[in-house]
């Protein structure tokens, strides 16, 4: 059953101030996303145990992942107690704090695999670019909530939101982390399209992008990034470098066939043919071991997750709620699509984690907080 905007899922007495949760609200609490999240994380840990069981470097990393999940659940409780309008009030604070963290990474960050992406806090290593995706979406939701533009956005009206996106995207590109920057740009583009861009402006923008991409390829990209694109088009051109990863990953996915090789029996990952198989290439481990059947189930769960998220957005009664949920689900969608596409050789290799399955504290934490916020929006449809 769906509600129209004037109806309410709960009988509300006139003038009653509602704080926290009532029993009846608890009964009708929308657990859907939280439950799906548990299922996905469960699959993730199970899969991670297989993926990290062989290599000294990553042995037992799933324990760290469990710890992060525990912290995430505590944060979820905290977010559910609040009202999501809180994020509207602090949107710009969160945004600027995250920008500062990104800048700090460039100055004092820790390097790994040729990029500076992490910053240390005591013993913790966090990756501010992961959090930036959520901060960005909160900030954009806030901006569009208060913006009064009517009849679609033109270039002039878009200037400020573009700036809001360009700064973090630029900082992330400098790390360099092409994947995360692209996710932010894709999410922004999706949101912009949803909010409506004037047709003329849209055509203009598309032609500008079509012109700048070859230029960026030539002048702004690092050699290894260019290499990835070349080897995506022709993996055999560089089978030692990124082409190697692509070939091995495709072999892993394909060799899973219908039912997979069995849990912990994926030779591609267990014999170390796969690179980074506990982070960005985690899906190839899963698909090698569980085959087409397993993959379809996993993809179906992601689909249900996305659809549930969209329905929350659909049912939300205020602009901030709609846009925030939409933005968050956009981030999820692009992660799932880009990551799986890259693992299966459909897209160039850019470092993008698969939500709930890839190892990584910052990524997991961002996903969990995102789900908590959407759940909050799903259950608190009114702002008082």
């Amino acid at each position, binding site marked *: 059953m769906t509600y129209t905007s004037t109806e309410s899922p709960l009988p509300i007495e006139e003038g009653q101030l509602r704080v926290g949760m009532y029993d009846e609200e608890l009964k009708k609490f929308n657990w859907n996303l939280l439950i799906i999240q548990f299922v996905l994380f469960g699959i993730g840990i199970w899969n991670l145990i297989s993926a990290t069981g062989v290599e000294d470097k990553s042995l037992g990393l799933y324990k760290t992942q469990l710890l992060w999940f525990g912290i995430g659940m505590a944060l979820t409780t905290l977010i559910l107690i609040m009202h999501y309008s809180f994020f509207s009030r602090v949107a710009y604070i969160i945004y600027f704090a995250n920008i500062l963290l990104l800048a700090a990474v460039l100055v004092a960050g820790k390097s790994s695999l040729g990029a500076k992406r992490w910053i240390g806090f005591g013993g913790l290593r966090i990756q501010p670019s992961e959090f930036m995706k959520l901060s960005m979406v909160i900030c954009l939701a806030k901006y569009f909530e208060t913006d009064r533009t009517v009849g679609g956005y033109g270039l002039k009206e878009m200037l400020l939101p573009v700036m809001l996106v360009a700064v973090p995207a630029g900082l992330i590109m400098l790390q360099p982390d092409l994947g995360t920057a692209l996710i932010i740009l894709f999410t922004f583009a999706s949101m912009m399209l949803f909010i409506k861009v004037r047709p003329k402006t849209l055509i203009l923008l598309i032609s500008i992008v079509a012109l700048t991409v070859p230029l960026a390829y030539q002048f702004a990209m690092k050699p290894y990034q260019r290499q990835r694109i070349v080897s995506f088009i022709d993996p055999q051109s560089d089978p030692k470098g990124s082409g190697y990863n692509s070939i091995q990953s495709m072999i892993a996915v394909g060799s899973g*066939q219908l039912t997979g090789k069995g849990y912990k029996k994926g030779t591609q990952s267990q014999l170390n*043919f796969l690179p980074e198989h506990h982070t960005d290439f985690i899906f190839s481990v899963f698909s*090698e071991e569980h085959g087409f059947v397993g993959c379809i189930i996993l993809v179906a769960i992601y689909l249900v997750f996305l659809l549930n998220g969209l329905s929350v957005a659909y049912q939300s009664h205020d602009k901030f709620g709609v846009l925030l949920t939409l933005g968050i689900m956009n981030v999820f969608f692009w992660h799932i699509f880009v990551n799986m596409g890259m693992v*299966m050789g459909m897209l160039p290799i850019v470092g993008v984690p698969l939500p709930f399955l890839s190892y990584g504290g910052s990524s997991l934490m961002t996903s969990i907080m995102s789900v908590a916020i959407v759940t909050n929006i799903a259950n608190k449809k009114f*702002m008082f």
Partner: protein
Amino acid sequence: MAFLGQEEQIREFQDRFRYLYAAVFIGIALLVSRLVFLQILNGDKMRHYSEENRIKRVKISAPRGMIFDRNKTLLIDNRPAFDLEIIPQYLKESKQSAQVISRLSTLINLKPEEIEATLKKYKSQPSFLAIKVKTDLSREEVAAVESWKIEMPGVQVEQEIKRTNIYGEIASHLLGYIGEVNATELPKLNAVTQRYKQGDSIGKFGLEQRVEDTLRGQDGEKLVEVDALGRIKLEKGKGRVLATPLEKLAAPGKNLILTIDQDLQNAAAKAFGTSIGSIVAIDPRSGAILSMMSRPSFDPTEFSRGIPSAVWNRLLNNENHPLRDKTIQDHYPPGSTFKIVTGVAGLEEGVIDEHTTIHCTGSMRVGNRVYHCHKKGGHGDVNILTAITQSCDVFFYRVAQKLKSVDDIAKWAKHLGLGKRTGINLAHEVSGLIPTEAWKMKHYNQVWTAGETLSVGIGQGYVLTTVLQLANMYASLANGGTLYKPYLIKEVESFDGNTLQTFNPEIVDQTRLKPKTYELVKQGLWAVINTQHGTAYAQRLPGMDFVGKTGTAQVINISADKIYQKCENMRFKDRHHGIFAGFAPVSNPVIAVAVIAEHGCHGGTAAAPIARAVIKTYLEKYYPTIYGEKAVAARLKAEGQPVVPIKMSRKAAEDEDEGVVPNDDAAPPIQGPMPFLPPLPPTPGEGPEAE
């Protein structure tokens, strides 16, 4: 409330949701269709690739540069060593472990139980990791295993490089050794770029350590296709994922050509026998090191593939310190070999000349203390030449006394390269010590005493030198005052023999001696060996004009009543060190040598013969027309005995323990590693008083 004004827009939004749903479905449909393509349509092929045609990255180890001596005699080589490995996973999968192991046991002469025990030991590690079952297989074993390979899945022969020091223990301190890079070093080594991985080798000592960057090559990489049993597929074409085998070739490290001469090294090793000590030989015309060795030693080859801890502990706990490089890591009181410095200071500062004569009565009183000569009855009247020849202590006490202060001796010691590191390209070099008045004030906050100057004058007291410094000092004396920086590497060449870099002599100090001083020093040193009164007369090399100076360094403080006791009657560890430094030939020196023979008692009998052997080998090898056996014999016959160029004032010196004198402020005994600062000497009056 805000949302009330947004109703219109929200309704507008809701209309657009169908596009979103459509986008999600399209995205998911794309992913699913790709899954179908890879797993269903191409699943068989992909499974085939993964099972039968695994692509594996194999590291191609870059050979480390080789090390040659000055005549391109190979000193350190990379020799292949073959290890037998088993990958348990493949063995298990083959379901015939028992047969494989029993066959293997006959092929490599190892009991089946031993193989099983090794496999059991590594049971906890992932089963696809290779386990080393036997190292250093013989050629026959390798051939046998290779021919049965098809029948023995999971069994493989791995070729590794064994860094081999061809001359074993000879010069192991100089050449050094390599070892596996340890986890704590890695972050520092890889700070700028990723250069080392766990398991890589790195130079840990000696030249292997100091010129690591030159010697080390760059590992390559090769993509090979291996089948499900880990065997590398050889046949081309059919079912291969890679169109062509791709590899990045390894870049071998650069070779070193040293200034060392291996024949000299061998001669020195032979002369040393089982003695403890060290030798350095330098070309006085350039500072090139011709020979450098410390005894006892160790075999670096044992280190290159991981040294057993028992061997390591034995080396570490050996009281003769085989791991220490006694040429640069230890410093000793130079004893009488230092008297030349005092003599040079006296002559150059003008306080003595060749006519200065001093009467030695066997001792000398300064204030209320008595300073002894090693010869109990005294040498009578001595001049600079006879003093050097017979190593008269009293003469040099007087010279030291005549000088303005100890700083004059220090000045000339420094000109001759003492008291500071020579700067040789080896780690752990100590600087030695040449005391000055200011130094003592700074370190002990005490005023320099006149008596201490006397001790310094005969190379005792605070004076400490390394054997390398001593050799370099005599090289400088040999060429008349030019001090070179000693160097070991003559050339760096590429692995295929093209010269990349040549090293030239480097002058450190150019203070020339006055011709008169130079002449007197040469004559004095000549007489030490070539006249009957000299302290090393037995070591002369007729026709080669081998010259030098003997010395003795006390190991323990000796009380006055024991000073004339025979050294050989003491406990071995208490016996004096014998020291010798010299050069040849005197007229046109081409080699300078310093030797210490620890606990050898006398410089003349323990150290000089080693120097003599090296010098003889060198001159005969490089100047056969002048110094070859026949040439020397012919010349001696024609010339008769070489003419003694000076008149000696007295007859032979009987006592050889020339440095051993009971002085209160003698340097503390040297035992094991020396701290930089010697402890404070006892205040005058407390020590034993002679007479």
